[in-house]
């Protein structure tokens, strides 16, 4: 009983507070955690904070950030995509084979993938299916297709893709520019356009959006298609960096992408997500998982644990901040 009351009081506080410090702190939390990780890296190895260091450390963060944005779109609609990892792997296999050898076929296949995602969204809406199970099934499908296409690790990324991912712009390392662009595009698309508001509304209050005359079917299909699109971009970016593919290359991305969205301040229900936060969350995870540990001389065994620990610490910080706001 008491628990219910305190919970109610906490959720209510930001609205009552008007200008609320805890709300601001909460919004800044993703950036704060990234800054802390960066400071730790700078303290442990000052030379890493350089043009070259960032390019190296953050290279793999680009596909992770794209996969996180992909996951964010389904989460906006109160769904979850458990297949994004194997999907990224499949896209990688297509990129390293068809897109190089037969660009037209490869491009059509990738477009078809986005179509499949849109169809899945429509199916989930029409039959009122649990997205967890449907995407679970799809994760087998993508992995099976990837193994059929590329039974052994190999293939080669198209030259133009390698060239794009290897760009060395002056002063600012490419991964940082890429992250800013990804965050900006997702932010303006989802948070600043009118249809973006409809999409978020379909997760926040589907009935209201439906009564207002918008097609929930289209909204769901659009969210899933966007997930497919960013999943495709993630797979292509990944192969542009690694230059060759493997059917299992993206498997870890499913859990990483969910963690990134939550770390960035997103919530599972209610269409409450933050594109900028999600990108920052992905960068934090990418940095904490390997460069930070390497500089701390911690064996790679504990890379995965670092991700878990960061998630728990940030979520704990969030609870502390919310409690402060409630006590006020």
């Amino acid at each position, binding site marked *: 009983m008491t628990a219910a009351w305190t919970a109610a009081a906490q959720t209510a506080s930001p609205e009552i507070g008007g200008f609320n410090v805890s709300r601001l702190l909460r919004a800044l939390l993703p950036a704060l955690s990234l800054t802390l990780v960066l400071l730790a890296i700078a303290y442990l190895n000052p030379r890493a904070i350089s043009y070259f260091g960032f390019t190296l450390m953050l290279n793999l963060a680009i596909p992770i950030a794209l996969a996180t944005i992909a996951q964010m779109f389904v989460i906006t609609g109160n769904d979850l995509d458990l297949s994004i990892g194997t999907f990224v792997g499949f896209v990688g296999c297509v990129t390293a084979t068809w897109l190089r050898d037969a660009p037209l076929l490869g491009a059509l296949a990738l477009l078809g993938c986005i179509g499949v995602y849109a169809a899945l969204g429509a199916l989930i809406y029409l039959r009122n299916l649990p997205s967890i199970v449907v995407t679970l099934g799809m994760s087998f499908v993508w992995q099976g297709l990837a193994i059929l296409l590329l039974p052994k690790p190999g293939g080669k990324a198209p030259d133009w893709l390698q060239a794009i991912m290897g760009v060395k712009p002056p002063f600012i390392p490419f991964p940082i520019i890429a992250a800013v662009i990804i965050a900006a595009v997702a932010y303006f698309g989802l948070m600043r356009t009118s249809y973006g508001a409809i999409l978020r509304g379909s997760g926040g209050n589907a009935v209201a959006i439906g009564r207002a005359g918008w097609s929930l079917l289209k909204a769901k299909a659009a969210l899933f298609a966007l997930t497919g699109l960013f999943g495709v971009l993630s797979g292509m970016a990944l192969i542009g960096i690694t230059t060759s593919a493997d059917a299992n290359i993206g498997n870890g991305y499913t859990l990483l992408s969910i963690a990134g969205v939550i770390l960035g301040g997103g919530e599972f229900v209610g269409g409450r997500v933050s594109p900028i936060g999600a990108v920052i969350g992905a960068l934090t995870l990418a940095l904490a998982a390997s460069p930070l540990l390497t500089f701390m001389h911690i064996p790679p065994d504990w890379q995965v*644990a670092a991700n878990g620990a960061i998630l728990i610490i940030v979520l704990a910080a969030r609870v502390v901040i919310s409690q402060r706001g409630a006590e006020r």
Partner: protein
Amino acid sequence: MIGVVNRLFAKPWIWSFLGALLVWVAAIVFTGGYGAGGMLTAALSLSVFTVVVGVGQTFVITLGPGNVDLSLPANIGLASAVAMKAMNGDDSMVAVGLLAALGCGMAIGVANYLLIWALRIPPIIATLSASFIIQSIDISYGRGLQIKPPPGFADFTNAQIFGVPVLAILTVLFTLGAGIALHRMVYGRSVLAIGQSIRAARLAGVRVGWIRFLTYALSGTLGGLDGALLAGYFRGANVDIGNEYLLASIAVVVLGGTSVAGGKANIPGVWGAALFLVLLLTMLNTFGVSAGVRLLLTGLIIVVVITAAGGPKAPR
């Protein structure tokens, strides 16, 4: 007679058994009746591992939306290593090893609930973060672990009576107990009540926190048990031994007729769905398809089955 049949078909779990029967028949038609019994024996042996974690996952998922235990694979992996180290290949240490695995699993379940409770985060994220950490502990702890299970324990996990695996018989008894706990005991009824409406359950005097705690601890413990059994059956512990049970445990719960929205659970369906999944793989193997096609078809069939079964109807 017709009344019985009609009543049988009204049960949500009957479909998973029919599906299992269908793929089994398809497989033996293909082999011309050869190996029909052996196929069932193998399917029963392998289903056990899915059923054990599936029952734990059923209780967790029944708690309501957002409740799911994603730490099971890491839990199974760690428990398999703990069990093998504690047993150390010695038959007299089997009980100790089993207890160690159960304790390890229960500790993970308790830790999961502590995260959910202390951080007030959705269970899916709590168990996800926990699984990251458990996975690392397992990699570090179980690195290069070459200990074989004690011969007595390995024989026990593979033992059969008239072609029926002993483990399967014990697991049937266990699922009967789980069914009784779910439908006839205060604990199970409380789990169902929380899944239907957490607020109503709380107002009705159900100790919500305590019941959720018990459920996550139960799921963790079953994961630990599964780890020990798997290590016995496959003759050794392995970091990746539990990997397939993340998807499998969720899939059997849903295919078996338990509602992902919570509040409606189905224990017999877990058996049906587990047999279905294992026999499906057996069938595809007898057809001689490649690994890629097998994965592809498994995935498509899961999607088709869930589409045909339909999701939960909109709330009244």
